[in-house]
């Protein structure tokens, strides 16, 4: 028997939900109009409206909580699709609720990590991001949450509607959010996709930020010729049609040449160089400690770099197979190159701007008068003081990268076609969008909520970094 949307609790909660949503939206609209009128007539807004809309918002929150509670407490099958999804997500929801509750309570003692929890916006953002991080961890680590194998089709459930019963025994009894055109479970694919998105997006963004930093700091600090050349290059890349580059990278002739591995070597070498300069500039006056620290940091990093870059069967193979446990997918390299290409010039400009400001400060002059090297000043005097805006920007940028990942998947670039990542799934669902909407919507909603969460988190962090000044 197929599931309906809200099951038994829906009979009571659906009308309540409709009422509270309607009331809240109406009051919000009224408040907006009142605020505009108040600006026009230069009078303060009546506080009654504000209070009313706050209460309506709280009512809406309560009804939502009621759905969640019903989904977790009542037996599966009686609570409909919504209840089923909530019940599957229960471990993630409970973890997030605990972590957020503790963080809000202890925000003063958490230092930097407590910052987002001082504002509502930041807390909501952190909760959304954390929800997907926990989901990815629980699925990737323990196989929880998903109902079916995201890659295995059940042929009778091709394009099945949400709540369709599964004919095979021993499996979860329903396709909660329906089946896709290859008869795989849409819900499980969305959950599995979170793992891919949440490993690649932050890593790729971090690489891009590191590349942007390594170029932006010298451009801003040294100025002159260095700045002119690097800024011009950044402008050139920003003006370049990047889609063309992506297609070039996946054409077989280019893909089999030495170009992609060489690019990978350079790209993944940037963090290596960055760390080396970081350590050396700090410890240059103490040769013993310098060598020791450099070795301790660089040997594992160099091995990691070699393992990622060297790949059997390509022109770049230099590591013996025994030492080479990592063979990342070739498509992944395209993703990294794409992300770095699109983001590094923007990060570069931000870092350069911040550096131009910070290098005029007296503490930079003080560092110069005690004979520090430019590298030390850039990495240890300038960079720590540019961190506020950079952290905010990196949060936003992870969001953009997630969307870019989706875009790449949408063009069939990057990841393998059966990958459950959200971009590829949306692309898959697009083909039959006019007939079957349900395969495309869940990954789109997941993407939206993650990016929204990252943006809100960035807003919350920005608010706090402003308040501290």
């Amino acid at each position: 028997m197929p599931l309906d949307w809200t099951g038994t609790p829906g009979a009571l909660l659906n009308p309540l939900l409709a009422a509270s949503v309607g009331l809240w939206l109406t009051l919000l609209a009224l408040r907006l109009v009142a605020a505009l009128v108040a600006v026009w007539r230069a009078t303060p807004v009546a506080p009654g409206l504000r209070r009313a809309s706050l209460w309506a918002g709280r009512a809406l929150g309560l009804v939502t909580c009621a759905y969640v509670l019903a989904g977790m407490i009542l037996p599966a099958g009686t609570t409909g699709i919504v209840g089923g999804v909530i019940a599957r997500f229960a471990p993630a929801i409970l973890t997030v609720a605990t972590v957020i509750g503790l963080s809000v309570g202890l925000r003063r003692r958490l230092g930097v990590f407590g910052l987002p929890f001082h504002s509502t916006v930041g807390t909501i953002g952190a909760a959304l991001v954390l929800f997907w991080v926990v989901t990815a961890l629980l699925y990737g680590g323990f196989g929880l949450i998903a109902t079916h194998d995201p890659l295995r089709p059940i042929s009778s459930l091709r394009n099945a509607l949400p709540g369709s019963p599964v004919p095979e025994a021993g499996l979860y009894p329903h396709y909660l959010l329906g089946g896709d055109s290859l008869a795989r479970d849409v819900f499980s694919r969305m959950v599995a996709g979170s793992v891919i998105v949440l490993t690649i997006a932050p890593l790729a963004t971090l690489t891009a930020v590191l590349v942007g930093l390594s170029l932006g700091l010298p451009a801003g600090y040294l100025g002159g010729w260095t700045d002119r050349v690097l800024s011009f290059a950044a402008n050139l890349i920003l003006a370049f049609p990047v889609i063309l580059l992506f297609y070039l990278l996946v054409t077989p002739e280019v893909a089999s040449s030495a170009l992609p591995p060489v690019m990978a070597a350079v790209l993944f070498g940037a963090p290596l160089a960055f760390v080396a300069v970081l350590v050396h500039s700090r410890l240059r006056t103490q040769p013993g400690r310098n060598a020791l620290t450099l070795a301790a940091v660089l040997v594992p990093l160099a091995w990691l770099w070699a393992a990622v870059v060297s790949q059997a069967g390509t022109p770049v193979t230099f590591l013996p197979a025994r030492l080479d446990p990592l063979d990342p997918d070739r498509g992944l390299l395209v993703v990294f190159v794409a992300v770095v290409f699109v983001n590094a010039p923007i990060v570069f400009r931000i870092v350069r701007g911040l550096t131009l400001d910070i290098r005029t400060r007296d503490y930079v002059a003080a560092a110069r008068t005690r004979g520090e090297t430019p590298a030390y000043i850039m990495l240890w005097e300038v960079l720590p003081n540019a961190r506020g805006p950079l952290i905010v920007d990196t949060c936003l940028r992870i969001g953009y990268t997630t969307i870019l990942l989706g875009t790449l998947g949408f063009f069939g670039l990057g990841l393998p076609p059966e990958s459950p990542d959200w971009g590829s799934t949306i692309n898959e669902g697009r083909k039959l969008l006019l007939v079957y909407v349900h395969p495309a919507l869940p990954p789109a909603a997941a993407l939206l909520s993650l990016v929204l969460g990252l943006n809100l988190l960035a807003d919350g962090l920005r608010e706090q970094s402003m308040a501290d000044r």
Partner: protein
Amino acid sequence: MTPLLAIQGLSVTFATRDRLLPAVTDLTLTIAAGEALALVGESGCGKSTVAAAILRDLGPSGRITGGTVRLDGQDLSTLSPAALRAIRGRRIVMVQQDPMASLNPAMTVGAQLAEVPMIHEGVSRAAAMVRARAIVADVQLPDPDRILRSYPHQLSGGQQQRIVIAMALMSRPSLLILDEPTTALDVTVEAAVVQLVKDLCRSQGTALLFITHNLGLVLDVCDRICVMYAGEVVEAGPARAVFDAMRHPYTQALFRAIPVPAASRDHRPLVTIPGTMPQPDALPPGCRFAPRCAHAVAGLCDAGPVPLLPVRPGATTLDTRRAALPHMTRCLRHTAIEWDAAPTAFDPQPRTAPGPVVLRVAGLHTHYPVARSLFARGRAQVVRANTDVTFDLHAGETLAVVGESGSGKSTLARVLTGLVTATAGQVRFHDRPIGGVPVADRDPATVAAIQMVFQNPADTLNPSVSVGRQIQRALTVFRIGRNTADRQERMLGLLDRVRLPRSAADRLPRHLSGGQRQRVGIARAFAGTPQVVVADEPVSALDVSVQAAITDLLIDMQARHGTALLFISHDLGIVRYLADRVLVMYLGYVVEAGSTAQVFAPPYHPYTEALLSAVPIADTGVKRRQVILQGDVPSAVNPPPGCPFQTRCHRKDQVPGDLCDRMLPDLRTLPGGGQIRCHLPDAVLAAMTPVIAGTDAAG
């Protein structure tokens, strides 16, 4: 007669995330029409909050929790926002510290000035422009038509502040509030702006609320004075009465912490105020100054709130027509304290005899290229920041470099520390030439030997690194100490020497006050036992009470290490206090040089004369000759021909012929031993009288 502005029992609190902070408590003051009242106090005492409360512009977190503010008897707190707007900018006008913050950078000066009568009085644009031109002439700006057409960024700081004052006076307000209007300006410009405000207010009958920390200016401008401390008025009364007979320990301590150019440190040692102002959330129960007060008596001063008491019980007010309050003080022991007793002072370090020459500068020229695009025509332009600067610096002595901004004194500091390289001339440290050697190419010993103390306490320390680690880093770079533990111990020793608690080592700079940060900056500069320390205006951004402490610390550190100190300042009071010798710089040239006594006594270079006369002095016993300089420092890209000072010189007509226009004067040695760069004939020089004459000016 009702006063123009009457504030009765005003209390203001600010709400932070988790508590309420009282900023002003129970403040009462009146200003009569046409009267000038000074509100004096250190930063954080609540004086700017009073101004904001008058205009009810406290922001979202500030709230008036008690009292009334009446303008002409009308309670401003009952007014509607629209009625309040009609008063702001028309009856009450405010001038802020930073003129650029009050000017719209995207509008011409003329359009901004014309807006005032167009908005408040509805006059036509043409009529408004006519009035704008008239007022620009009133504030003594040259070439009013050009000024009206220019944008704010095309004017100098002094000109911008004049425009802001012109804009304020445009609507002929009843009350003008000036919030530290001259703090960002040079002394000579400050003197002219203050004079201007005083004259304009007299002629228009505008009342003045003058908020400042500079006691000297108060005496020049104001009829009455209100001294604030930690949100309260501690002393109030007619300005001269208060200055002649201070009756609150805080006022007296503030006064004794200011160096005056009439006395050296051997005659009038500075007295520092111990401790810091209490935070608004930790106010002491009784007298708020008691914890820092040398006269406080336990059981009396800390028992409960102290009321404002009249200094002479039953005394009638001095001027009943103005309804002025008599001299009042918030001190319970004001009759018991021996006010004229000499201060038990910090023991001035005996001056050490100057040692051998450590630094020799001869014929130094420093030019900066002006950035220009590929398509600019003509010859490459340069800023001539230093021209033909020559001096010696001996071990253990203090050489002060004095001049307005743009005089090239900071460039000199940058050349010595290697941040900039000299274009021509010799700079020798012992026997090593260093003028052309950037700091990156100097060996660590030389780098450690020439260190610098910076001006801005907010900027001098890296905000992300703990204080201890910053000092330790200096030790590491100078290769001092065997290992990390040893350097840690030395760092703690340095903290002791600059009188900071050892616990400060783990704090971030933002947890320290401005004075404490400056102490860390000094500790860092002295980490490598330097032979030369260049201090670039090290105290000018600090409160007066802190200035004295930091100055004394510098003297102390210098005496302890036998360091030569190159002290850059525009504050002649401090220069007189600590310098052995003085260089006066103008537009990159040294215009006068000599021992402190020689420079501060006639004959003067006309520029030194003007600088000395511009210093406001908070002492009614000191008389000053007024010399007000017109105009601004010319551009160093395009210096005037002949004498660099000829465009502003008030004695140019005493030089025969057009010598000043044609020829650069040589730095010549006077019979008394000082050197000046001036064409004035010996007879004129010999006839000069002292600028400052007073009780102990002879020293």
